[in-house]
């Protein structure tokens, strides 16, 4: 029997690949449309599954018309606030993760001192200690950023730690036989190799970062993507919620792509394989 007869070897053509990829999305849209129509037939004002035209009207109101109450363009204001919180949280968490991960991975003494406590901290569910976070960091912007940092930096730290440990000991020995001191080994041998892996770790933690951002905004806020969703949920405005969810998904996708791009541009050697 020839190789080509087995399904595991059947490769889709480019056209088929794109078609197959789009198919589930199309099915989901059709199922949604059908369900929405069915509910609308029963109650034309149904809010649970709004029609696509209602959603586009909601997008128009939130993105392209100033709010009646505040005169602001809500979607953009929400996006700016949320992205500021998210990006500052991720940047600080990445810096913390890199510092501690590299230090614990490189220095056995520091490893012995801090790995147990970092492991313990990483196991605490951040949502469980919210009241403590409020009391320490207040209810303003700071506490929202801190929640993201607490949520993702232990993961990044442990990831960097493991990646540092993976770097072959031969490299470190070689650098030392060439006369390298500790800081030269850390900054010239380890850091350059860890940098692309840091981007990888940040990419993996993006999902959690969004989760913590939205949780923080649900608790106390005056703007933000999560704030808007939780606010309008009070009157079941799914016509606002669904486009916001799509927008968040899109932003998350763009962020992820950007990180890949940065990684490819800055560390081409890492992506050669």
């Amino acid at each position, binding site marked *: 029997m020839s190789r080509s007869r087995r*399904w595991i070897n059947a490769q889709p053509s480019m056209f088929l690949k794109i078609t197959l990829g789009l198919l589930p999305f199309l099915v989901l849209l059709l199922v949604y449309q059908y369900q929405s129509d069915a*509910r609308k037939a029963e109650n034309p*004002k149904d809010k649970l599954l709004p029609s696509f035209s209602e959603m586009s009207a909601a997008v128009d109101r939130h993105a392209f018309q100033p709010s009646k109450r505040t005169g602001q363009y809500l979607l953009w204001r929400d996006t700016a606030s949320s992205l500021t919180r998210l990006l500052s949280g991720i940047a600080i968490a990445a810096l913390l993760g890199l510092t501690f991960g590299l230090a614990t991975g490189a220095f056995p003494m520091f490893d012995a001192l801090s790995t147990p406590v970092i492991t313990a901290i990483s196991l605490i569910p951040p949502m469980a200690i919210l009241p403590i976070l*409020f009391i320490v960091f207040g209810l303003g912007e700071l506490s929202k950023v801190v929640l993201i940092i607490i949520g993702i930096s232990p993961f990044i730290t442990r990831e960097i730690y493991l990646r540092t440990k993976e770097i072959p000991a031969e490299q470190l020995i070689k650098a030392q036989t060439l006369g390298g001191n500790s800081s030269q080994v850390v900054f010239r041998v380890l850091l350059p190799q860890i940098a692309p892996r840091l981007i990888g770790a940040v990419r993996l933690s993006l999902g959690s970062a969004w989760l913590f951002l939205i949780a923080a905004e649900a608790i106390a806020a005056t703007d933000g993507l999560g704030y808007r969703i939780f606010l309008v949920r009070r009157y079941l405005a799914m016509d606002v919620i669904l486009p916001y969810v799509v927008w968040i998904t899109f932003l998350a996708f763009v962020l992820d792509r950007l990180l890949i791009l940065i990684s490819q541009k800055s560390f081409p050697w890492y992506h050669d394989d």
Partner: protein
Amino acid sequence: MYKLFSAHKTQTTRRQRGFFTPLIFSTCLLILSAVPLGQAVAERDSFRVCWSIYVGWMPWGYGAEAGIVNKWADKYGIDIEVVQINDYIESINQYTAGEFDACTMTNMDALTIPSAGGVDTTALIVGDFSNGNDAIILKDETSLSAIKGQKVNLVELSVSHYLLARALDSVSLAEKDVTVVNTSDADMVSAYTTKDVTSVVTWNPLVAEILKMPGATKVFDSASIPGEIIDTLMINTQTLQENPNLGKALAGAWYEIMQNMQESADVRASMGKASGTDLAGYEMQLASTHMYYAAGDAVDFVNSPDLLQTMQYVAEFSFTHGLLGEGAPDAGFIGIATPAGIFGDADNVLLRFDPTYMQMAADGKL
């Protein structure tokens, strides 16, 4: 490169089955998804009622547990399932989506969620109104006017927000004089302990908890706007019209529960326990709740022209906060029918206060 479906005809059936399994699966999925979520309303004999934890609604939990709801359902030959939902807003959303036939909610949330969502809703039982249960608390200030310029933490678009609007009105301030910070009720007490928070609007038992803290002063509460924050059992109007027995069974059960509640401290203690406090804590909440133990009093309340005035305030607040939907041209877009008259569009009545069933209970005709 070759086409996907070029596999040879003589391929083993095992492989083919491997291909058909996902096909069958997705077909099932499609068929399943073709079943509409909403169910057509018609005369039937099985109903679902939801309630959430609040001082004035604890009787439903007791009534279900003690078998009183079942007893009355049996009397009218129907089935009533009473379901407690932990998230208040979620319970209203579920009711609005058609998952429940009746649900406990306030007058304002009934207007802004089911009615604004096109679900014609009737207040079957008016159980109580908040008579101090909702309050504005300031930190280190003792008069309401000091709220000017402050950040105010509250659950935005809730009755707390309404209370704030009414309070600001009473001291000639407007909402633009403060900054409203949407804060989850679950985190209100711990939020108050932080230095960022200087004023909160919330409800009991959170009010009692916050007032225990240093510097906390209650500067306004719902006792200043009596009868405006009303706790009701709302029911789908169409379901009620097609199934009057459901209305009778619920009203009958409710006033039997009310009688037990009024007469027996044990009953009140069990309600207190179910709401996470004890008899003393529950009685304290009851003290700031105007319960209508007697059906006749509730009927008088619903018949009074004051209710019409209240619903006008509520509709105006809801309209200015965009809660009646973007298509609403004015506060009267959704008609609200009360025995004293209709507020708003008489051709678009979607919220009704109907004392019929409470009257039957008052007359002992159930």
